[in-house]
């Protein structure tokens, strides 16, 4: 019984520590791009730990599959949303703080080109499907 409690408590504490650290990082880091490091990386181990502990605490098959689904989904989506946010912010012209060196991308604020390319692709797609129907 004592052993079982250890399996429940240790992952939960471990996970809660990482979730709190991620929040501290999100508040303390100087710009959006650095904050994304905290919010995307730390939360994976944090939520994995908490969900593992919760699964041990509930020890129920239906709860276990749901927790597995949530964990899998979060694991897959967290890096994707970090990528999307960084890309949109950069192309929309939010300047990064770069004390470490130069910006090798050099496309800051060029969202218009991307939007233009997207509109062209949309038009091509519409023309294609129009031909298919007609």
């Amino acid at each position: 019984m004592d052993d079982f409690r250890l399996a429940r408590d240790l992952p939960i504490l471990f996970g809660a520590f990482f979730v709190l650290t991620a929040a501290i990082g999100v508040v303390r880091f100087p710009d959006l791009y650095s904050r994304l490091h905290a919010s995307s990386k730390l939360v994976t181990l944090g939520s994995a730990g908490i969900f593992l502990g919760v699964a041990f605490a509930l020890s129920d098959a239906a709860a276990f599959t749901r927790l597995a689904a949530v964990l899998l989904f979060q694991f897959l989506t967290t890096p994707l949303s970090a990528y999307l946010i960084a890309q949109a912010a950069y192309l929309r012209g939010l300047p990064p703080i770069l004390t470490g060196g130069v910006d090798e991308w050099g496309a800051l604020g060029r969202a218009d080109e991307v939007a233009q390319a997207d509109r062209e692709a949309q038009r091509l797609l519409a023309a294609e499907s129009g031909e298919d129907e007609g």
Partner: protein
Amino acid sequence: MNRPTLVSLLAVVWALLLGDPALRHLAVGLGLGVLIVRLFPGGVGPGATLRRPDLRASLRRGVAWLRLLGFFLRELTVANVQVALLALQSRPRLNPLIVEVPLRLRSEGMLTLLAFTITLMPGTVAMGLSRDRRTLYAHAIGTADAEAARASIVRVESYLLPLETPPSSLSPTGGPA
């Protein structure tokens, strides 16, 4: 991702959502998966046909996947500890910079996997791809200089290269333009 993989993934997700991996739920999930893939054909990537299984090659690919998984779990732990230390230091030396990395990978799926992996790796977050998909841009913190950040991304890429399907088995047109 090819069609059978996608359909079986959807079936498993359906069973997980119902909270009961019984056979009939999986069957309903398979039916729904076929329907969804039929409705949204854009979700199936180029080269989405079943190839003739080659035991030798699939064994090699399996080993490569396992190596990637081991590497990924180790690096994920390191990344968490590193960023936690940076967040808790009184004066963190973030040293933020944006690097460009010329890519050797070509297929869309592998590029997605690369961006996914380096975002969870120590020091780097993927930020974007060039229009011709030949260059990846990433934001790095906590690395010594641009060369070190680039080297860590190239290392991930070298783990992914053996997983990429050779160009000959892709569809000749390379999918929708």
